[in-house]
C-alpha cells in the first residue's frame, strides 16, 4: 500500500506555451491546470461535468476539463480563459461580458466565456443542435441557438439574460430580431 502512485509524463501546449509535466495519472486536466501549471482561471465547480465552470478549449473544441485526465492530452493545444485575453487586452467576448454585466460572482464566468467563444464557432461550423427545426440543415446564428448550446454552463447568480446580450453583440445579431420576435410570434419554443 505504500507504493508511490504511478506517474506519467505529459507534454502539451497551454495557451501557446509548451508544458512538460510528470503527473499522478489520476490528475484531471482541470487539476493539472490549476495545481500544477498554476492557472487558476479555470474553475472547479462540481468536478463531475455537471456545471461547466471548468470549460476549456482543447484543439479548439470546448470540453469539461474535470472529466478528462491530463495524461490523455499528450500533444494537445489547450486554451484557458487566461489564453483568451488579459485585463489589459480583453478578448471581444470578455469585453462584451463586462459591458453587458454577464456575470456576478464571477466563478462560472471563465467557463461561460470559453463556452461562448466556442459556441459561436460551432454555429458557424454548422454543428447541429436540438433547437433546429431540421438537424440536417444549417443552424442559424440566433440567441435561441446560443441559449441551447450554453445550457451546460450553469450560472447560479442568474446572469443568463445578460450573457445572451453579450454573445449576441459579439455574434453581430440583434436579440429583438431573432429569438424574442420569433417567440412572440409563436414560431419557436421559449
Amino acid at each position, binding site marked *: *500500500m*505504500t*507504493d*508511490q*502512485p504511478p506517474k506519467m509524463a505529459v507534454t502539451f501546449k497551454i495557451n501557446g506555451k509548451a508544458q512538460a509535466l510528470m503527473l*499522478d495519472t*489520476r490528475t484531471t486536466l482541470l*487539476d493539472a491546470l490549476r*495545481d500544477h501549471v*498554476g492557472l*487558476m*482561471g479555470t*474553475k*472547479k*465547480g462540481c*468536478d*463531475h461535468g455537471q*456545471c461547466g*465552470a471548468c470549460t476549456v478549449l482543447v484543439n479548439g473544441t470546448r470540453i469539461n476539463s474535470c472529466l478528462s485526465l491530463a495524461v490523455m492530452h499528450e500533444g494537445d493545444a489547450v486554451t*484557458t*480563459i*487566461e489564453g483568451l485575453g*488579459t*485585463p489589459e487586452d*480583453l478578448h471581444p467576448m*470578455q*469585453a462584451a*461580458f*463586462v459591458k453587458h*454585466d454577464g*456575470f*456576478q*460572482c*464571477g*466563478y*462560472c*464566468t*471563465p467557463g461561460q*466565456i470559453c463556452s461562448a467563444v466556442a459556441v459561436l464557432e460551432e454555429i458557424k461550423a454548422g454543428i447541429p443542435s436540438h*433547437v433546429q427545426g431540421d438537424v440536417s440543415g444549417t443552424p442559424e446564428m440566433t440567441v435561441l441557438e*446560443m*441559449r441551447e448550446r*450554453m*445550457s*451546460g*454552463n*450553469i*450560472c*447560479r447568480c*442568474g*446572469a*443568463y*439574460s445578460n450573457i*445572451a446580450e453579450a454573445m449576441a453583440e459579439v455574434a453581430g445579431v440583434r*436579440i429583438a430580431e431573432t*429569438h424574442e420576435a420569433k*417567440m412572440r410570434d*409563436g414560431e419557436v*419554443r*421559449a
Partner: protein
Amino acid sequence: MKFETPAGANPIDAMKVIGQAVDRVDGKLKTTGQAPYAYEHKDVPGKPAYGYVIGAGIAKGRVASMNTAEAKRMPGVLAVVSAENAQPLGKGQMNTAKLLGGPEVDHYHQALAVVVAESFEQARSAANAVRIEYERGSGRFDLAKAKPGAQPLTGNDADTHTGDFEGAFAAAPVQLDQTYTTPDQNHAMMEPFATIAWWEGDALSVWTSNQMIAWNKKELAATFKMPPEKVHVRSPYVGGGFGGKLFLRADAVMAALGAKACGRPVKIALPRPFMVNNATHRPATIQRVRIGTTKEGRITAIGHESWSGDLPGGGPEVATQQTRLLYAGANRLTAMRLAELDLPEANAMRAPGEAPGMMVLEIAIDETAEKLGMDPVEFRVLNDTQVDPEHPERPFSQRNFVRCLQEGAARFGWSRRKAKPGQVREGRWLIGMGVASAFRNNINMTSAARVRLAGDGVVTVETDMTDIGTGSYTIIAQTAAEMMGLPVEKVRVKLGDSSFPASAGSGGQWGANSSTSGVYAACVKLREAVAQRLGMDPATAEFIDGEVRAGNRSASLAEAAKSGEIVAEEAMQWGDLAKKFQQSTFGAHFVEAAVDSYTGETRVRRMLAVCAAGRILNPKTARSQVIGAMTMGVGGALMEELAVDRRFGFFVNHDLAGYEVPVHADIPHQEVIFLDEADDKVSPMKAKGVGELGLCGVGAAVANAVYNATGVRVRDYPITLDKYLAKLPAIA
C-alpha cells in the same frame, strides 16, 4: 456617525457617479480569470497540503469505530484528524450542528474526519480507505409526520394577533382557506466551500469563501477557543453565497485542524456531492393561508401559518413575516410552528422567510382575486396600506407598491390577459400570464470603513465588506468617488479582510445600503481632514472634479495629501428611524408562461419586474441582482427541490445533476424597471436593498401564469408536470 434623523441634502445627491450604470470595477479581473477565489491564493507561507473531508454515512447515531490505519499508510498521507485526536472544539453561536461530528452523529454527511496528504489525489484516495462502523439511531425526517408535534415559538417568532381574526374570517362573505407546501432548497452556489488555513504559532490565518468576515472571525475563535485577535480571515472574492456562506462551515474548521496536525498550510474545497447534506439548506414549509374579504374585495381578515423543521436548537423558516406588513386588513393572525427533524441543518437562503412565504401568499392572493371575480392587480391595489397594519400610527418610510403594480401592468400588456384560465392557445402551447407582489424588508447593519487619500490623489477604501457577486466593489468605489469628487478610476477598493474595519457584510439585502453608508461616514471624516489640511472651512468645502473648493479658493485633492497620507475611519450606526418608520422594499413581478398541451412542459416566455427600492446606486449591477433573483425564482417555481430520503434521512439529489437549477435555455430575456426613488429615512445613501426583493414573489408569478395557462392550480412546489399533466385541458 449615527443616522438619527431623515437625511437632508448631501454630496451623494449630486449623483455624478452614484446612480450611474458603471461597469463593475472587478469586471476585467473576473472575466480574465485573474480574480483569486479562496482555494486559489498563492500568498500562503509554504506549499499547502490537501485535505479531503469524510462525512457521516448515517443521519443519526454514533460512530462505533473508525479505522484509519490503512489510510495513514497510503502514499503522501500526512495526517488523519477526527474527533478522536482533534483538540476539543467549541461551537460557534451561529451553527446549530457541530462542524466536526463524532462519536455522536447529528446529520448525514456531518464532517467526521479530514485526511491530509501531499496531493489532492492522494488525500481523496486515502479518505476512501478510512473504515467507519456506525451504530445507526432512529431519526425524524418527515415534516408532514412531525407537524402535529411542532412547537410554538417566542420572541420575534411568536404568534401575532391583531383584532379578531377568527371572528372576522368566519363572518367574511368571501373566504379562502388553502394549504400549500414548499420543498427544501439548496443555495447551489458555483464556488464550493473552500479554505486555505495555516497556523503561525498560536495565530490562525484563512483564505476562505465567506459572506460575513467579522462573524467568521468570531466563530473561528470560538471554535478553536482562542482570542479573536489571533484570527485573520480573508475573503476578497466569493463565488456565490446566497446565505449558504453566512456562517463558518466545515471547510474552514477541517482545514485549520489539518494544518495544525501537519504543521503546514492545508487547502480544502468541499466536493460538490458533499455540499448539500454537509451544509445548510432552506427548509421545507407547510403553509396555511386564510383570507376573508368583503364582496367588494377589501380584506377584513388575513391569517398565515407556517410549519417547518430543523435540528434540535435550530430555528424556523420565518415564512409568515411579509404577511404582517404587505396588505391592509383589520384582523390579522400569523403563527409559526417548529418541528425537530434530524435532517441537515436548516438555515438562511436568499430572502429567508419571504422567499417561500411569498411563493405561497401570492398564490393565495391570486386565488382570492379569482373568487371575487377581480383582476389580481386591482385586488392588490385595493388592499394597499401606507401604514404598518398592526400599528397604524407607524407609516412606511416610502411605499410605491401600487405604482409598481400599475406601471408593470401597463408595460407588460396585462390587459391582454384572459381572466378565465386555459383560454389562450398558440399552436400546441397554452399561454398564461401571472402577477405577484414583491416585498422584502430593508435592514440596516452597523458598517465601518477606512479611507486613505494618498499624495497621487488616489483614494483607497478598506472595509471587511464582501462582494458575493452583488457589486460591492463597484458601488463602494462609486460612493467614495461621489463623496471625494473623483472619477471611479481614482478609487481603489479593498474588501473581505478581517484586518479592515468591520462592515455589515453580505446578507439580508442589507449589504449595499449599509456598507456604502459606512463608506459615506468615513468619507465625511476624510473631507473634514482634507479641508483642515488645506486650511479651508470643512462646513462649506466642496469636492468637485478632483478639486476642493471653499469660498474663492481651490486646490487639488492630491495637494492635501502631499505632506503625507490622510486616513479617516468611521462607522455608520443607526438610530430608531426603523422603529418610527417601517422600512421595506416593494415590487411587482409579471410572467408569461407557455405550457405544452401535449407534454405539459412549461416554458417561461417573458418576465418583468418593477421595483421600488429607494435610490439605485448602480442600475447595471442592481438590475443584475434582480434578473439573477428572477432566475432563481423560476427555479423555485418549476424545478428546485431537495428530495428527502425519509428512511435514511438525507437529501438524495445532492449534486448539480440531481438538484436542478435553471440553465440558459430556461430563461428568456428579462426586463427590470426601477422606480426613481430616494428614501431619506433609511440612510444618507437613500438606498435600500434589491438582491432579495427580486426573488420574493417570482415563484408565485410563475405559478399564477401556469394556472392562467392551464386552469390547473398546483399548490405544492415545484410545479412539475407530474402534478398537472393528467388534468390539462383536452387537446383541441
